[in-house]
């Protein structure tokens, strides 16, 4: 019966997005009934009408994810070839033209849309599009603003233009790099539950004490939970009997204060990075160097263009800015590649970043390498190389937008509070609110029969986050983090077997 109620709940959504005409409202109501009929074939989550302007790398990734979550997506771009390509791949409609034109926006249905995301190459255009969309009746707007100058006053801009969110992919990428530099043993660190829990992934190399033992033996003494294991491009959710092998990538949920002690107890080094070489002086390098200067880390920035190098050196008086080609072997050795404890390859070319990381590893196997990959579509190939941490700015942006969309859905009635895609988007971590009608309330974790590849990662009870054990129960009002490889869960009870 709960399922039927869930299906009828769609009504609120359909009435909400009903247009002005009474006929179309009737049609939508009819379609609701059709939805109801087809309910047993498919599960429909709440659908938002979303317009994405600017179909570049990020725009495409965002659209792809939004379609996968069942939203009605309309694309706008000036380049018709890009649109045609997207139409052949995704279930969307497209409008050709510039998003800053009223005609184009109206044709894309801006007056009825729930969210407009402006991701064109220019900050000013993005802001203008969002301003127009807001005036034309868009319910919410997101703009990508990358210029560091605008970023200083971003809250002023956001409030005066009525933006729901301003995203800065470079800044987010810099933050993520910084987190990794703080704990060099980690491959990636993601923040959960407003920073109360972190998901740390690391390579279990031969120093690691976890290898070759079943999880229930090793993790019982640790205040952490292993929630995903990647072995040769296969990802699985580990259970008590699963054994971690050498060179597996393990993702664990752990509270941020306990990361150092966690690494120490499993036998991985915890020393923080002392000196770092950054190759490529773009925006990420800028944000990163500013933060590192604050933490008093030593940085060397190698930038090819003299004017850029000069600008960086003016902004960052403590950094060692070198004007030169970062791919020059002699220059790298001269600037102390052999002695540096980390290297961040942030040039505009993915291939260059990958090769530089491999080279750095060959010079010093213990160096921490971080490579930025923007465009490459061959993730499985890239991941199979030994290049340490990889940062994908497009996924960082897409994740942020998805979290916003989920939150918006949540206002309308979906139970998912936030969604995180981790480990190259292959694993989802979802935060659910435990409500009265959940069937999982008041059963201990041991007694629950859950689907395969689902794990309850953490429980947030009255602001306190803890890693659950077999004897713990879910209580009404908790929120839980579910880690899973199944995508499209929309309700807490979906995890039951």
């Amino acid at each position, binding site marked *: 019966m709960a399922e039927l109620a869930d299906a009828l709940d769609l009504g609120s959504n359909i009435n909400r997005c009903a*247009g*002005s*005409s009474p*006929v*179309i409202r009737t*049609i939508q109501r*009819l*379609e609701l009934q*059709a939805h109801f009929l*087809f309910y047993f*074939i*498919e599960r429909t989550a709440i659908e938002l*009408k979303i317009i994405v302007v600017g179909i570049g790398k990020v725009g495409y990734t965002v659209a792809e994810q939004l*379609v996968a979550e069942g939203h*009605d*997506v*309309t694309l706008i771009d000036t380049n*018709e070839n890009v649109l045609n390509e*997207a*139409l*052949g*791949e*995704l*279930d*969307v*409609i497209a409008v050709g033209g510039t998003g800053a034109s009223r005609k184009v926006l109206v044709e894309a249905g801006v007056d009825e849309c729930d969210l407009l995301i402006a991701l064109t190459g220019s900050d000013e255009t993005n802001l203008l599009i969002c301003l127009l969309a807001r005036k034309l009746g868009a319910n919410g707007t997101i703009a990508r603003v990358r210029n560091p100058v605008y970023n200083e006053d971003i809250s002023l801009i956001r409030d005066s233009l009525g933006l729901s969110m301003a995203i800065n992919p470079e800044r987010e990428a810099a933050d993520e790099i910084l987190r990794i530099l703080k704990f060099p043993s980690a491959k990636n660190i993601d923040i959960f539950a407003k920073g109360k829990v972190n998901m740390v992934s690391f390579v279990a190399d031969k120093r690691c004490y976890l290898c070759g033992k079943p999880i229930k033996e090793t993790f019982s003494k640790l205040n952490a939970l292993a929630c995903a294991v990647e072995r040769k491009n296969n990802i699985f959710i580990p259970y008590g009997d699963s054994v971690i092998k050498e060179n597996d990538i393990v993702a664990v949920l752990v509270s941020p204060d306990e990361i150092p002690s966690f690494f120490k107890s499993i036998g991985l080094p915890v020393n923080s990075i002392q000196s770092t070489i950054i190759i490529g002086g773009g925006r990420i390098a800028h944000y990163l160097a500013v933060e590192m200067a604050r933490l008093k880390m030593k940085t060397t920035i190698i930038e090819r263009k003299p004017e850029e190098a000069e600008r960086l050196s003016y902004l960052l008086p403590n950094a060692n800015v070198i004007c030169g080609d970062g791919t020059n072997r002699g220059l790298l050795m001269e600037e102390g590649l052999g002695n540096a404890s980390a290297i961040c390859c942030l040039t505009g070319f993915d291939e260059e970043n990958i090769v530089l990381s491999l080279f750095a590893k060959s010079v010093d196997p213990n160096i921490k390498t971080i490579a930025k990959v923007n465009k490459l579509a061959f993730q499985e190939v890239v991941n199979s190389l030994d290049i340490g941490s990889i940062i994908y700015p497009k996924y960082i942006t897409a994740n942020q937008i998805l979290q916003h969309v989920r939150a918006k859905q949540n206002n309308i009635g979906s139970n998912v509070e936030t969604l995180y895609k981790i480990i190259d988007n292959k694993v989802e971590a979802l935060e659910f609110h435990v409500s009265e009608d959940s069937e999982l309330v008041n059963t201990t974790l041991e007694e629950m029969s859950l689907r395969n590849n689902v794990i309850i990662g953490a429980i947030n009870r009255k602001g306190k986050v803890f890693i659950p054990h077999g004897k713990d129960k879910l209580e009404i009002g908790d929120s839980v983090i579910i880690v899973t490889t199944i995508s499209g869960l929309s309700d807490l009870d979906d995890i039951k077997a």
Partner: protein
Amino acid sequence: MNKRMVTYILGILLLVESGLMVLPVIVAYMYNEKIIFSFLITIGILLVSGLLLTFKKPENKTIYSRDGFFIVSLGWIVLSLFGALPFTLSGEIPNYVDALFETVSGFTTTGASALTDVEALSKSALFWRSFTHWVGGMGVLVFIMAVVPLARGGGNLHLMRAESPGPDVGKLVPKSKSTARILYGIYLGMTIVEIILLKLGGMSFFESVTLSFGTAGTGGFGVLNTSIGSYSVYCQGVITIFMILFGVNFNMYFFLLCGKIRDIFKNEELRAYLGIMFSSIIIITINIHNMFDSIFMAFHHSAFQVASVMTTTGYSTTDFDKWPELSRAIMIIVMCVGGCAGSTGGGFKVSRVLILLKSAKKELKKLSHPRSVNVITLDGKRISDEVLRGTTVYFTIYIIIMIGSFLLVSIDKMDITTNMTAVIATLNNIGPGLGKVGPTGNFSEYTMFSKIVFILNMLLGRLELFPMLLMFMPNINAKKNKIKNS
């Protein structure tokens, strides 16, 4: 090419056809007809083969543009091959090629018949014939798409493009599934209104349903030997109006429902469609007025016949083969023009005619002003070079096929008018032509060979040439794709 996916979708298609055949079974049960067993046997065959093909779901649900064309053309052939079985099994149309001709004519909404006596068929066979019109009009794959998503992501658009008529097929709303639902919703709604209006005009329920199916798909199978001639003027009028309505791009009805009336009036194709239609009606009315008692009756018959052949339905209330030469010439011209893109009508499509005329004008202008820059627009929107090129190529292939078929069927000893209009009538999915295949005649005098040529013409016309032709193109990257699938 994703072969697993192709066979899987074909399997679904067979299962859907077995579902569709339940309706004639019900009719056969109601009228207590023996043909019910033939339908049941066919359903059995369809179910078994469908289940075998869909037994294992393919893991890779991606389909490419080429696969879309392949699935659609193969799907329509398979659909017709099985759809013809009940006619032959029951012995009502003993020759399988004749039965296939009838079924293909049904699914492609042509309405050409190889039967001399239609009234000899049982009610359920007649119902099945007309029902194939209704299914074929909007498309079978679009129908399936409204219920379950067939392919991953954009793959659905490839299928929709291959099956829906028009030079540039788009979606109404972002999701292909919702688009398919809206289209079928409008289609079903209009059909039901027509059934009610015809029933109010005193037709029997069976006749109003079958004739409405024929109108909605712009098919043209009647249930009487006289086609529509023996019904009241009111019923004929209702059918005239609905034929015109079903020849309009269905996007217009969507705009109407959304309250975007202005977009409808701005549509150049609709204006051209109505313009050609009404000027032809008026010229023919003047040309034939002394053949009828009153000018109103002349207008009535002229309107019915013009609407019928222009929307490529093919119903008739009078024998237009006996009309003066001018009227007959106009009839042949509007036959070739056809309905609007995105309607259930066949033919060359008004929008293609518009695009060709505009590009001819542009080229002429370029001759006198060699450096002039001209952009071709339709409804204020730029026609991309791709669409323009596609339209020109379409026209070329259309002419080549027409000439080739004309030569092939000329082997039979018929006169030129009959042969030429028979090819036009099948390639444009109209039904009747002139001469021996005129409104009172039929295709029964042709040999089996010519009938097969006509069957191919009908399929080529309904799927708009390219999908069928691509089926015979060699698969150059067969091996590369095999790796992709594994």
